[in-house]
């Protein structure tokens, strides 16, 4: 048994036989050509034939991996027809009086170098596309037939790297995993693995003698285990079966409504901490975003983010979610999440200190900048705003005054904004106790169970010594949630949970019975909770 580690670009477990793919070197020789025009004509004919091949690959990919996976072959056709690329080939033939193969090889080097020099990781990878089309063109020119990749019986494809045309030629019904020595999270291997829903590893320094051996790919740990011991293999067979069962179930739940057997609809939203989480939101089929933490905008900068910078991010999220609810929480920082340029003092008890709405209500300029950006973005989608760390009705009234000021100013400047639902986090015992009054002021509540638990039980979650005293399901917390739901509804506000407890499958039934309207959880928890709710009697 031998273990190799790498980086998993797609999760899952695969067991199968390894097929090691070795790239056949295409040797290109530089030959002197007498009749330049004839050579250019030969190159043109080869381009037409290569184009036909790419069209066929597009059709094949379209059937197998769908439109988004096939699109790359359309792009390859454009690259092949690109005027600069064509002119470069013809110029080299003409000026150097060389054969077309050589002219293509040089052109490929120059163009792929351009991509390789780019800073952007994704663009760097595009050097591989240029090489892929150029190699195909050279093969056509030298009338070399490329044998189709025979993946008979082999299910784990191991290679230095895989080009789009290599991957599309495989019999996908048999491929269970990809393992490459090079490549990145943006490489075609990774993209294809995601579309095919098979585990894939990159950056694996395998040895060349593993061809034909049985192996396990652990796409959770990022491991390739060659010739696994019997007990290891048995363990992975069990895991793979469980995983398959789970996947099947989850696929069935995608696109389904989150509704109980008795017909009660629950809004199942996602919590996100930045734009990069949006993909997971889409993949897991969330009905909206219930908590968008805006802190990252402040944390990743050396100075206060401007209104325009914030507006662009909020607008992009609103547009991506295309009309689905996006609830953005205003700045929630304090002495525990320090940001240098805020110039906050060090505090003995930051959890109960100068933080979140308390900063916003004393440094109105920062607050108004964020609110203006949010309201401007509301013209582009369905935005809700929620305010953290509320303890009193007066705070909410003050916030609403500031919101009205912001709206008035926007109107005066002729800037459009949409309908925005306003809500508050219920995360202090005080807010729970006055929730009936608070509900009359806002459209919704979102219960932040992490802080609420910490403040109610007087237990610091960071302190490991207190683990024995900590009870996530403490009756005090559950009674508080029930009270908030009842008071919220009495005052005309809908009520959700966005803390960790919202994703606790043991409590889902209880929350539904309490009458909760919304649960907002991390994207990967969406489908398991949907199943739980759909099974609820």
């Amino acid at each position: 048994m031998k273990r190799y580690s790498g980086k998993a670009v797609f999760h899952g477990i695969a067991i199968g036989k390894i097929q090691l793919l070795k790239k056949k070197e295409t040797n290109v020789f530089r030959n002197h050509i007498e009749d330049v025009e004839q050579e250019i004509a030969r190159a043109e004919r080869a381009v037409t034939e290569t184009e036909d091949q790419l069209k066929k690959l597009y059709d094949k990919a379209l059937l197998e991996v769908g439109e988004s996976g096939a699109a790359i072959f359309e792009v390859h056709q454009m690259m092949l027809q690109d005027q600069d690329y064509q002119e470069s080939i013809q110029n080299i033939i003409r000026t150097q009086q060389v054969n077309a193969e050589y002219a293509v090889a040089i052109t490929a080097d120059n163009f792929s170098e351009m991509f390789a020099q780019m800073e952007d990781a994704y663009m760097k990878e595009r050097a591989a596309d240029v090489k892929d089309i150029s190699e195909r063109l050279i093969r056509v020119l030298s009338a070399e037939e490329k044998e189709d990749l025979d993946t008979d019986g082999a299910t784990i494809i191991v290679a230095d790297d895989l080009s789009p045309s290599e991957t599309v030629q495989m019999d996908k019904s048999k491929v269970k995993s990809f393992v490459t020595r090079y490549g990145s999270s943006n490489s075609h291997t990774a993209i294809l693995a995601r579309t095919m829903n098979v585990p894939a590893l990159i950056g694996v320094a395998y040895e060349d003698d593993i061809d034909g051996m049985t192996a396990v790919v652990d796409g959770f740990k990022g491991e390739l285990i060659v010739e696994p011991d019997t007990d290891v293999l048995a363990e992975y067979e069990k895991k793979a079966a469980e995983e398959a069962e789970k996947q099947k179930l989850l696929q069935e739940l995608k696109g389904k409504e989150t509704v109980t057997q008795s017909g009660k609809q629950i809004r199942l939203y996602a919590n996100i901490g930045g734009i990069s989480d949006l993909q997971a939101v889409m993949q897991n089929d969330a009905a909206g975003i219930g908590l968008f933490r805006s802190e990252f905008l402040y944390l990743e900068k050396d100075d206060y983010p401007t209104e325009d910078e914030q507006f662009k991010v909020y607008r992009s999220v609103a547009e991506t979610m295309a009309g689905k609810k996006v609830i953005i929480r205003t700045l929630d920082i304090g002495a525990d999440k320090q940001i240098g340029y805020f110039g906050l003092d060090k505090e003995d008890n930051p959890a109960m200190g100068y933080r979140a709405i308390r900063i916003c209500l004393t440094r109105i300029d920062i607050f108004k900048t964020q609110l203006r950006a949010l309201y401007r973005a509301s013209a582009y989608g369905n935005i809700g705003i929620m305010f953290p760390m509320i303890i009193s009705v007066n705070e909410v009234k003050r916030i609403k005054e500031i919101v009205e000021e912001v709206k008035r100013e926007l109107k005066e400047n002729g800037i459009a904004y949409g309908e925005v639902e306003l809500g508050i986090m219920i995360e202090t015992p005080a807010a729970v106790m006055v929730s009936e009054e608070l509900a009359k002021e806002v459209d919704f509540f979102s219960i932040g169970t992490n802080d609420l638990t910490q403040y109610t039980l007087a237990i610091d979650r960071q302190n490991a010594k207190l683990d024995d005293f900590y009870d996530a399901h403490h009756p005090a917390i559950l009674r508080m949630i029930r009270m908030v739901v009842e008071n919220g509804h009495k005052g005309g506000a809908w009520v959700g949970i966005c803390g960790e407890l919202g994703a606790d499958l043991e409590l889902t039934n209880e929350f539904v019975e309490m009458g909760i309207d919304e649960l907002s959880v991390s994207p990967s928890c969406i489908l398991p909770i949907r199943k739980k709710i759909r099974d609820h009697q």
Partner: protein
Amino acid sequence: MVKFTFTVKDEMGLHARPAGLLVKEAAKCTSKVTIKKGDKSGDAKRIFNLMGLSIKHGEEVEVMVEGEKEQEEAAALEAFIAENI
């Protein structure tokens, strides 16, 4: 010449697929279509040229359409970009 600007919404920037879409659409125009980002510019009908600009998410770029039918072609292009890119 007709000019308009747009901001790239795709998180990966103007990568292969949207660049391909743009090239395909620009190729339908009889006008010359130039994309300008900062002090760099490229021909929108040439994919390498366009990808060479390395346009990232959130960046604003200018589109210049120049030709006999520039008015209508710019309008069509702008609508296409708003819808697809």
